[in-house]
């Protein structure tokens, strides 16, 4: 059932009808998310809407009760996280996911170790350490330092850089703007936009900060209590005042 065009090497991510439960609680119910190579999809909604569970289900940390996740036609539903990562889905978890006991260099090297075992991702661009340090010059100055000396913004840059070094076809980002200064948020979003514009990498980002997420995204999905309540172009969602007031808080 893949819609991937066999003539291109881009891997299309498909998230269809995901249902996930934590014991008796249904966290996700029949959630499908459009995601296209070269596009940014923003998943929005209040706290507890199921945004984080969605990403955790896609990356294999949560096993779905129903639904399907595939990349480039390859079924990954319920696979182990390490296998899904090796297939090209890079999940940057909530709370940054920096391993603070390691240095900046070691965090990046972990990404490179996986990247070395992978072909170039859908973006068509191969990332090396020098390349990601060019994207985020602040990291170059901190290269040998322990990662726990980094500021919040630098940590976010580090995990995005580390994810890029895995040569991903898909980037999943959980609350990349959380607790960051607006200037840092726009710097990170600009990097994401450049990456998708330059090639076929797919970005799915989960955000509570709906306003800035819709500014950078192509498509928006609004979740409420584990269900999809709206899917549309980002600009259309941003223009829908009733929806904004009801679900997005701006």
């Amino acid at each position, binding site marked *: 059932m893949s819609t991937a065009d066999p003539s291109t090497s881009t891997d299309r991510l498909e998230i269809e009808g995901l249902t996930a439960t934590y014991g008796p609680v249904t966290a996700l119910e029949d959630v499908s998310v459009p995601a296209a190579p070269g596009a940014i999809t923003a998943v929005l909604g209040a706290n507890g809407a199921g945004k984080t569970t969605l990403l955790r289900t896609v*990356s*294999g*940390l949560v096993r779905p009760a129903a639904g399907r996740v595939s990349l480039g036609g390859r079924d990954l539903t319920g696979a*182990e*996280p*390490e296998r899904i*990562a*090796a297939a090209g889905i*890079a*999940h940057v*978890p909530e*709370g940054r*996911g920096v*391993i*603070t*006991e*390691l240095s900046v260099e*070691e965090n990046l*090297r*972990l*990404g490179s*170790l*996986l990247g070395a*075992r992978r072909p170039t991702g859908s973006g068509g661009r191969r990332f090396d350490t020098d390349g990601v340090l060019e994207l985020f010059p602040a990291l170059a100055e901190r290269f040998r330092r322990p990662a*726990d000396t980094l500021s919040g913004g630098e940590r976010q840059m580090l995990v995005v850089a*580390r994810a890029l070094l*895995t040569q991903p076809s898909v980037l999943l980002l959980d609350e990349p703007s959380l607790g960051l200064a607006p200037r840092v948020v726009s710097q990170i979003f600009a990097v994401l936009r450049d990456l998708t514009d330059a090639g076929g990498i797919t970005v799915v980002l989960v955000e509570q900060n709906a306003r800035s997420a819709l500014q950078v995204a192509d498509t928006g999905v609004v979740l409420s209590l584990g269900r999809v309540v709206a899917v549309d172009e980002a600009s259309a969602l941003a223009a829908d005042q009733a929806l904004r007031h009801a679900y997005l808080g701006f």
Partner: protein
Amino acid sequence: MQRFLDLTLSGLSQGAIYAAFALALVLIWRSTRVVNFAQGSMAMFTTYLALLVVDAGASYWVALPVALVAGLLLGALVERVVMRPVENGPEINPVIVTLGVFIALQALASLVFGAQYRSFPAPLGLGGLTVGGVNIALTPYGLFTVGAVLVTMLALVALFRFTDLGLRLRASAFDGEVARLLGVPVGRMLTLGWALAAVVGSLSGLLIAGGSLVWPAYMDGLIVFGFVAAVLGGLESPVGSVVGGLVIGLSLSYVSGYLGSELAAFAALVILVAVLLVRPAGLFGRTTVRRV
């Protein structure tokens, strides 16, 4: 002065053994948050295997690697078969399971090898060396003990610091979820971590047995001193565990020498309580709170 020097030297060689045992505890604690109470029994079991090899007529230098490889396999086996099923349950479960392995291995050893005392060979002399005409409390075997622990520790440091495998092992220990998201097979890393820890534990069991007696419970004393050494070092830090081991070795040696050997175990407990009261994170512990 001569006495102080002697106590220091014997304390250091004894401390090296505590250090190895503490290091084994720390390796498992920092990757799985489990204090492996079975470490001593596992080491006892592999020491008996070494004894079998010696009984069969082989030299100590054959028995030693046989026991260490057996430790490697036993560690991997215990993690895979016994610990893995309780890994995701309540935190107390793995700890209780290690206690179960501790008792089961001791009982099994009594059945298979017998409960009587056996003497274990030492590969090198146990008489004090003579330096400048003075006989000191440093034996060739003591030197071997310190050297073996030192070499093992340096090899582990090199593995963790300078190799890709070491980076994967550390990432798995510090943040298993993030490591998995970066494609690290964390399950395999945990098995390897247990295997490496069991090798180091086995080494401590072999070293303390050398030139002495073994019986199924001969490691019980070492478990106490090794545990105190690990706590003193902060439980998190391999370097801390080695320093902790040496400090405990020296302390107990001075206490035994100056105050009486019957006070050694008491002194170890006093140190344990003092550390927990004054510096619960240990000498080398990180006091930062980890997010969960």
